[in-house]
């Protein structure tokens, strides 16, 4: 084959990688102080490292972090992962989970609109909610929004309980269709490694391909 009949990369278009937007919604209330917040911090760090080490996911995954305590705040906004720093998590205050989840849902909607404006394809957004306690604010609006999004297949949500004090019933209200799971001990690292593998699988899926969750892998970090 003569080289003149091989198209050069310059003759082709350059489409951006389809994105998987992920929002981590993390409880940093006072009860998380000590070992839990340290383990969570290391788990988030490991999540970033695992995504950065993945050939496909490093370009596909986009992460934002919402923390909630007495107030909810956008700790890390969506942007390319190589430009993000893992924030220092500090535990204090009460548990404004409803505000945190609503803020996360707002951020995901804004990000989807950004993708649409820029002509960037994207996968169904993911939201991970991690808490060790009970909300001190009203979660009914957040629960309603999640229910509507999941019914329309517009969101995948993973509510994760940390420790025995986390209220599974409350978390169930944020997870229609899939029961929340309780973290085994403080196995944050195992959870975030599982999450990065799951994101990697989704980011490589093609039309018509249903991506099954790695249920067997959940055993390393979760219990029902």
């Amino acid at each position: 084959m003569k080289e003149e009949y091989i198209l050069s990369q310059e003759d082709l278009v350059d489409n951006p990688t389809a994105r998987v937007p992920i929002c981590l919604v993390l409880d940093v209330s006072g009860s998380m102080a000590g070992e839990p917040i340290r383990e969570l911090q290391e788990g988030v760090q490991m999540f970033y490292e695992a995504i950065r080490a993945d050939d496909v996911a490093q370009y596909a995954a986009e992460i934002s972090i919402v923390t909630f305590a007495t107030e909810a705040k956008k700790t890390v906004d969506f942007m390319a992962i190589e430009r993000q720093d893992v924030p220092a998590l500090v535990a204090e205050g009460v548990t404004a989970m409803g505000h945190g989840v609503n803020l996360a849902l707002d951020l995901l909607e804004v990000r989807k609109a950004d993708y649409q404006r820029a002509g960037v394809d994207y996968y169904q957004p993911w939201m991970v909610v991690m808490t060790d306690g009970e909300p001190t604010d009203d979660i009914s609006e957040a629960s309603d929004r999640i229910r509507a999004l999941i019914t329309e297949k517009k969101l995948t949500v993973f509510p994760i309980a940390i420790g025995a004090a986390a209220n599974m019933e409350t978390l169930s209200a944020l997870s229609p269709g899939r029961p929340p799971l309780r973290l085994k001990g403080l196995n944050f690292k195992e959870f975030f490694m599982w999450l990065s593998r799951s994101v990697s699988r989704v980011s490589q899926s093609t039309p018509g391909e249903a991506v099954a969750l790695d249920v067997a892998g959940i055993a390393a970090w979760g219990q029902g």
Partner: protein
Amino acid sequence: MWRASPLGGRGKLMEATQRSNSYRASCAQIIGRSHEKSGTPCQDFVAARVQRDFACVALADGAGSKTHSEQGARTVVKAVTRILSDRFDELWGLAGDDPSQVSGQLLQHCLEALQHQALRLDCQLSDLASTLLFVAHSKGRYLAGHLGDGCIIQQEEGGQLVVLSHPENGEYANTTFFVTDATAEKRLRIYQGECTMGAGFVVMSDGTAESLYRRSDGSPAAAVGQVLNWNRTISPSEMRAVLGANLERTFSAKSADDCSIGVLSAL
């Protein structure tokens, strides 16, 4: 004469070229890296058919996790090629008056073939889900159809490239629409028109479209013009090798998915 690209894997690149005094049509497909890694067969199927006054390229991309979608893709490509070859004049005329009649009849024909295949394979119809793209040309007239992702690019008189049919995805990157969907009849887009000899068409699956279709503004890559130029000017055997080499070395670098392409030139 019917020639199709049978199913195959990397290293078993499938190509076909058809030539007449009026037409040249070539096609090729290759299994994607992700399918090779997972042991999934190539789910793209593309075929070219040329007769004296008729030519057609048709392509289908089987749904990712459907168990027999590679068989479904093969079945609809053969079925649509057959009906276009047998009834081109009638369908072209009907498309001018009522395109929905044409989409209904073509889908009915495809679904009958799929039902037969489902019985043979003892599977559900949905297990045979695939997209569908085709262009047929006869005596200065073309009829094209498209359901799902991938795209169809046309070279107009004067050489200008235009996207005749854009990809239709759902909201998410891993969603699209298939022949076996309940809404398929509404989603099968039919295009009909006249074009002089010298026209060219390229059909491609989403894997190839990663290289040849810019999603942000829906424009074609300049490379499509080069591919059509080669199809008109080099020998059929050379064109077969050219498409195969570009799938292997160029298009597959931009997508881990199966890649396929069909090229039709009216000389």
